[in-house]
């Protein structure tokens, strides 16, 4: 027999406290009278807490409270959105740069020197360009001597259209 059982009250003692037990039960019954609507409020709060605390992604995240876990998830979503945005930006920038044609340029100093010597072959070998655009640029350069001489003193890069870059 458990030694604690020996300490239990005798029947007479039990009768002594039965009245007190009844009073405490009345008090407890009074305290169980909950305010109207309490159970609905609590059920709603508990249900939301359970839903918020449920794992959202694979890999458990330790969180003491639903709210903090929710905060964590939200901040991670923001981080993912920012990463995607930056990724799109960089990708677009690279693609647009690749899609732009690289302008063919002529070293105007060498071109002017070749022109001064009336060396048309040198003109052609400067850029290895033989298309019409190049030809028209050469023509423009040839006709505009002042521009060529200026380019000799102040070297600039000239595009196929004849414009200074």
């Amino acid at each position: 027999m458990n030694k604690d059982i020996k300490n239990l009250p005798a029947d007479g003692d039990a009768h002594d406290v039965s009245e007190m037990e009844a009073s405490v039960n009345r008090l407890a019954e009074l305290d169980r009278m909950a305010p109207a609507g309490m159970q609905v409020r609590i059920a709603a709060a508990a249900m939301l807490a359970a839903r918020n605390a449920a794992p959202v992604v694979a890999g458990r995240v330790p969180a003491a409270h639903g709210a903090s876990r929710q905060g964590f998830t939200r901040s991670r979503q923001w981080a993912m959105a920012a990463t995607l945005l930056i990724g799109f930006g960089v990708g677009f920038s690279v693609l647009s740069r690749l899609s732009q044609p690289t302008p063919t340029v002529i070293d105007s100093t060498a071109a002017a020197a070749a022109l001064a010597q009336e060396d048309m072959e040198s003109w052609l070998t400067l850029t290895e360009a033989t298309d019409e655009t190049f030809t028209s640029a050469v023509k423009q350069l040839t006709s505009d001597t002042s521009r060529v001489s200026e380019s000799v003193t102040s070297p600039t890069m000239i595009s196929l259209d004849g414009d200074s870059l």
Partner: protein
Amino acid sequence: MSAEGSAENAALAVLLESASKGEADAWRTLVDLYSRRVFALAKSRCRSSELAEEITQSVFVTIATKLSQSEYTEKGRFESWLFRVAMNRIRDEARRAKRHATPTDPEAVSALADRSRMSDASGASSATNEESVQQIARLRLAMDQLSDADREIIELRHHGQMSFQQLADMLNEPMGTLLARHHRALRKLKEIMSEAMSQEIDRAAGTALTPTTTHSTVRIGSEKQR
């Protein structure tokens, strides 16, 4: 364990599984089963319905969070676990509010008064009801004077409606010890109440014997003593 007990445990396990997924019906049932008992425990300590509801809600939110994160590991001992969480929360609150404790309970008196009105309608005398109100107030004061351990077992047993087996699981103590402690706590409560009653009778007798001219002086003196 009896077949009936096993069936109850199985039903509760299903209910808890649904609750852990946040199902509304499961939470309605769980809250309906246990919330008023947790509320009564909290109300007995903090004496305020609003605060008791707040505590009860936070207990259920804690339970919901732990269930969803699979942190409920005491299978088959849900009530013990629930009331352990509740008692921890109530103790925290009691420590926080100890300096602001209020010795009276106007809400309980008014709640009882409502009940008294109902009793009046059924023919009970108002004098008896008044006596009940005073008896409840005295009982609350007496509960305040119990040690924490004694008070805890009274509240868990009567307000929380826990069985001694559940108490033994929860407090991790032999059932015999808890039975003896419960009995001692009730006897202590009775002694405190008897003492308070005799003091009241003495005071009333002193007041009645005192001449009218010195009546107010005596009352002031007795209040100072208190």
